[in-house]
Structures are given as structure tokens and as C-alpha cells.
């Protein structure tokens, strides 16, 4: 056991980080408000290997593992890269063109049994829609759905559409595939939530070190320092549990996959939310403006919280598991 990020992984993460810094700045994100999608960016992400990362090399992929993918998604989360990233990544190998970026794949997670209204992200940019049920995966052509755009989505970078009826699709995976997709999806999204947890703390630190009131940096007030210390603890705990979930999916003998995934998603959802809320508070009035990008993070957190199981659903699953283990 050596749980540290190894050199190859650090290099992979660094590559994605510098790509995002150059390509997905806050200014560029502002341009994408209301659209949340840019096909050029999508192709570049595909070229970077974001979608084919875990596809075997023989099939045209990069042949890496879930732990590696988590690091990539952490960076995508930090940079707030928009689009149906996790779904397209999960569809690589399952839907032609997903890995190389020629097919944009979205999805709707119905495995929790929720009913209408059905909200689908990025609908108008999708080539294929996956329907994830508890016991199967289906694919449908988006045009088979009667989808109404929602004029004001919570996340300005994630357009949503409302659908009231779900058509029957073509079954492309069974119960095991569905479960694997749910686990992997939860871990990838946890990676993004980890990225949000980190970036919102970094923003709070930068702001409170620079802003002065009462003739000193507000970051020197203990009431704020302690909030940020708690944000840091949350960040470190989340990093550890999310990486552990990725590593456990890669090596199921290292732990209990279902528990590792639920612990990660429950933790990451809570942490991203708490750290983004803290960031709003620590920025004062600025934190309530559209101009300061903290709200993008807060809003994206809700999008990511509500897919592949909410924090509460994963907490319930963990309790269920523990209840069964205790006679």
C-alpha cells in the first residue's frame, strides 16, 4: 500500500490543469453562459483523452484506471468545465464516437426511482441519451423525447430541459453494467465536487488575505480563519475518501466498492456545498454578486449533487449496509 499520488498521476493531473487554465478561464466561461457547450472545446477535451481515458488502448483509448480518471475530473471540477462530461466518459466503448468526441452523450439517472418532472442537462447538444435504470442501461435518440427547455436553469453553464414522459429505448447493458455505471459515475462526479471544494477554499483564502477592514486583512479575524480551517479539513478528508473510492474501483480487493463509493459521494457532496457556501459568506457583498464566480461553483454543486445519488441517498445506503452487518 502506498496511497500517495504517483509521478505519472501527478503529470496527468498537471497536464489537464494547464489545459484548463489556458482554455477554460472564468472569462471564457462567462461567454458560455446560457449555452454551457462549445463543440471545439469538446473536441479538445476528447483529444486530451478525457473521454477515452479508461478505454483500453486496443480500442483507441488511453488505458488508464478510475483513480487516474478521478484526478482528471478533479481538475475539470476546479475549472468548472461545462458539459455532460461524466456521461460521455462513461459511454466510451458503449456508444460509438463518445471516446473521440464525435458523439456527445448525456444521461438521465432513473435508478433512484424518481418520477416526473425529469430534468435533462445539455439536452440540445446531445447526440445520444442514456437512461440509467437500476437493472439496465438504455439508449435513446434525443429526438424521440418531447423536451421543453427551462428558460432559467440554476447553473448558468448547465442548460436543462424538462421531459414529462420517458420513451422506451434500446437496452445496451444489464443490471451489472448499470451498477458499474452508477458507481463509476458517482466517483467521477465526486472528483468534480472535490475540485469545487478546493477551488472555493482557494478563492476564500485569496480574497480574505487581500481585503482589508478595520485596518487589517479580514483573513486575520479568527472567526474567518476558523471557518477556513474547517474548509481545509473538509477538503483533505474529501480528497482522501474520493481517491480511495477510485482506487477501490480499480482494485476491488482493496475494499468494499459499494461502501467506498457511497462514502465518497456523500462526503464530496456535503463538502462542496459547505465550502461554496462559506465562500459566499467570506466574500461579503461581493460574494452575492454575479460578477464574482463563487456562485458558479455553488450552483454547479447542485447539478453534481443530484446525479448518481445524492449525499442523503448515499448516506442511507451506508446505514443500510451497516444495519445488515450488525446482527
Amino acid at each position, binding site marked *: 500500500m502506498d*496511497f500517495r499520488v504517483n509521478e505519472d498521476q501527478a503529470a496527468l493531473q498537471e497536464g489537464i490543469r494547464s489545459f484548463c487554465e489556458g482554455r477554460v478561464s472564468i472569462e471564457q466561461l462567462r461567454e458560455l453562459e446560457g449555452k454551457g457547450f462549445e463543440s471545439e472545446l469538446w473536441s479538445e477535451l476528447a483529444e486530451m483523452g478525457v473521454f477515452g481515458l479508461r478505454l483500453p488502448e486496443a480500442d483507441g483509448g488511453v488505458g488508464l484506471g478510475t483513480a487516474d480518471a478521478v484526478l482528471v475530473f478533479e481538475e475539470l471540477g476546479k475549472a468548472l468545465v461545462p458539459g455532460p462530461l461524466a456521461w460521455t466518459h462513461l459511454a466510451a466503448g458503449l456508444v460509438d464516437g463518445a471516446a473521440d468526441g464525435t458523439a456527445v452523450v448525456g444521461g438521465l439517472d432513473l435508478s433512484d426511482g424518481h418520477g416526473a418532472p425529469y430534468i435533462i442537462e445539455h439536452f440540445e447538444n446531445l447526440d445520444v441519451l442514456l437512461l440509467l435504470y437500476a437493472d439496465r442501461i438504455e439508449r435513446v435518440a434525443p429526438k424521440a423525447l418531447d423536451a421543453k427547455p427551462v428558460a432559467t436553469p440554476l447553473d448558468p453553464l448547465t442548460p436543462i430541459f424538462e421531459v414529462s414522459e420517458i420513451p422506451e429505448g434500446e437496452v445496451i447493458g444489464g443490471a451489472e453494467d448499470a451498477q458499474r455505471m452508477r458507481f463509476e459515475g458517482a466517483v467521477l462526479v465526486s472528483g468534480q465536487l472535490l475540485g469545487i471544494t478546493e477551488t472555493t477554499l482557494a478563492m476564500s483564502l485569496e480574497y480574505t488575505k487581500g481585503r482589508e477592514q478595520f485596518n487589517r486583512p479580514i483573513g486575520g479575524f479568527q472567526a474567518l480563519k476558523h471557518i477556513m480551517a474547517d474548509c481545509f479539513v473538509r477538503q483533505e478528508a474529501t480528497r482522501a475518501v474520493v481517491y*480511495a473510492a477510485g482506487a477501490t474501483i480499480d482494485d476491488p480487493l482493496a475494499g468494499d466498492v459499494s461502501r467506498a463509493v457511497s462514502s465518497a459521494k456523500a462526503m464530496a457532496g456535503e463538502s462542496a456545498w459547505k465550502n461554496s457556501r462559506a465562500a459566499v459568506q467570506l466574500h461579503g457583498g461581493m460574494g452575492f454578486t454575479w460578477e464574482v464566480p463563487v456562485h458558479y461553483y455553488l450552483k454547479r454543486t447542485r447539478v453534481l449533487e443530484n446525479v448518481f445519488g445524492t449525499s442523503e441517498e448515499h448516506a442511507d445506503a451506508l446505514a443500510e449496509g451497516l444495519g445488515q452487518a450488525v446482527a
Partner: protein
Amino acid sequence: MDLRYSEADEKFRAELGAWLKEAVPAHGKAPSIHDWPGRRAYDTGWQRKLFDAGYAGVNWPKEYGGRDATLTEQLVYYEEIARAHAPYVGVNFVGMLHGGPTVITEGTEQQKAKHIPRILRGEEVWCQGFSEPVAGSDLAALQTRAVRDGDVYRVTGHKIWTSFAQVSDYCELLVRTNPDASKHKGISWLIMPMDLPGIDIRPLPTIIGDSDFSEVFLEDVPVPVENLVGEENDGWRVTNVTLRFERGTAFASEMYQLQESLRDVVEIAKRVTRHGVVVWEDRALRREVGHLQSELDSLWAMMKLSVSETAQTGMPGLGASAIKLYYTELYQRVCELALGVLGRAGLAREDVGGLPTQDALRRMLNSLSLTIAGGTSQVQRNIISERILGLPREPR
């Protein structure tokens, strides 16, 4: 990012597990909290058994009697000890978990040869004489004076909250050797034999009803100069080594044990009834249990990451403060949850209705000390925000 234990680790786990299965029940029940000779004998007797079986000081150097095991074997050790509900380190806490490690890191050859094997065998019990009435969170304000007089330091002062002082053989003692230097610069770290003349120990009752800590009055106590660890006046640096161990690795087994405590909550919840239904059916309770499970898993993953890093540096990093802070606050949440589940049964400090109330209440009361001892939660937050996050410092 490799999480899997090796075959050798698993073999170690199996051997240790098999040994614990016999050894733990054979060691019998812990004596009453008021029976000090009994407690010392029980705790050091267990330490001796660990030593004889080759499990004492898993990460300590072989030349002083340790096992020199890999870092993963240490983690396996912590997990198995917790799982087996093995006796707590008890009076061996200071010697095994931070005093000993400090001597290994900072001590002279002579000091190591003299103390380390005896600590490992359960022959030497240590206590920690850091805090003073005027120096709690502001530890560097300590005033206990040590004046050089030939081969000895003559030590005079007043220590407080000294755990296990009444059964200790040695004390890791902080003294002021240079009163003229600034407060962090004039401190030294001494090994004080507790049988020297001039030491007066007065136990203080705790909220648990035991007297695990004491006041220790020192008057002209002659501590040999050879017992100085590190350089004279360099004691603050040595202190930080001690505190890193105290915050970083000292709680590993209890941390894992928390998983067991959470299971205990579930078990109790399945046995008690309220409003005509089994308490475990309460969805709000279950959800909190689920969140705690997620957070305990996060804590243990953090520990694994930290141990993987410590393997490279030999000493826990500043992140130890984050782990200590998180662990102690989670511990309190688990205990409070148990208290809520017990309801009126939790008014009893001994087992009632076949429920493990004695243990649950002792743990709950004790949990309140964890965010105070070893540096309060507020102090840990100061350390994190200033030294890790680079925010402006508090006045000091």
C-alpha cells in the same frame, strides 16, 4: 494510489489477529478506575505480552526492541488492535505514543538505549509535564524554572493536568532554562525521574469521576543534565516533534475503533424501542449514521494518506492537526448519537436493561476532553489557518 495491503501485510494481519483472539480474553477485565496499582499492572502487563509476542513498537527500530515493521504493517496493527477490542494503551500512552518516539527522534544513543527497550517491555511508565496553570494553549508561556547546578538542573515549578503522574516512572518535562530569552527560545525538554526528591503529586478528580490527571509541584528537584533531550534552550523545537506525534499517529487505533463505536450505536438502536417501534427504524437516525460512516471512512482514508507520506519523512506533517481536529469532533458526534439512542437508559453510568451504558457513558464523558487535551480544537484551527493556509497570525 495503491490501497491494497500486500500478501505479507495480510499474513501479518492473520498472525496478529489469531494471537489477539487468545490474548485479549486471557488478559481479563480492566480493574476499577480507582485502583491505581491494578491499572498500572493491567496496562503494563498487556504491554509486556505485546512485547513478548513481537508486537510492541511495530514501527520502532529493531536495535531497541521494536519490530521495525513497514508502515502498512503499522496500519494493519492499528486496525486489528481496534477490531479485537484489545486493552487500551492506558498508562503507556505517553511513553509509547509520543515520549518514546521523541526520544527515538531526538535523544542521545545513551538515552535511547536506557529508555526505549524498557518502555517497550512495559517496565517504564511516562507522563507529560507540559501544561502549567499559566501555560495551557499558550504552552510557551511556561514558567517552571531549571537552573544548572553542576551535573544537575534544579527544577522548581507547578505542572497541571499531568495524566497518570501517580503511576509514572519518568516525566517528559518542559522547563525554562533561559528566562531572559524570548519565550520560545529559553525552553528545554528534560526526562525527569519521578522518584526524585521535591516532587509532590496531587490528583485532580475529573468529570468521569476518576483522577487521571494531577497537579505536580516541583521544588528544587535535581534532574541530571544527561537527561536533557536536544540542546539546552532548543526545547521548543523538540516539543513540536512531540506534539506532531501526539496529534499525528497517537490516536490511530482509537480512530479505527470509532468504526466499532458506530456499529455499537446501530446495535443499541436495534435493541431499544421508542414510540412503539425499534429506534433503528428512525430514518433521521439512520441518515446521521450513514453520514458518520462516510466521514469515518474519510478520516481513515486521510490517515492512510498521511501514513503514506510519513513513511517518506519519518514524522507526521502539519496535516496532523487536521486529523486530530477532525477525529476528535467526529468522536464526539458518535458519542452524542449513542446518548440520544440510549435515551433514559443514558442516565445510568452502569449497564441497565442489558445495554452497554457504562461504556457508552464513559466514552461520551471522555470524548469531551479530546477537543481540549493535546491542543484544543481552536488551537488546531489556528495552526491550520496560519501555518498551512498562510493567514495572518494571532498575537503571541
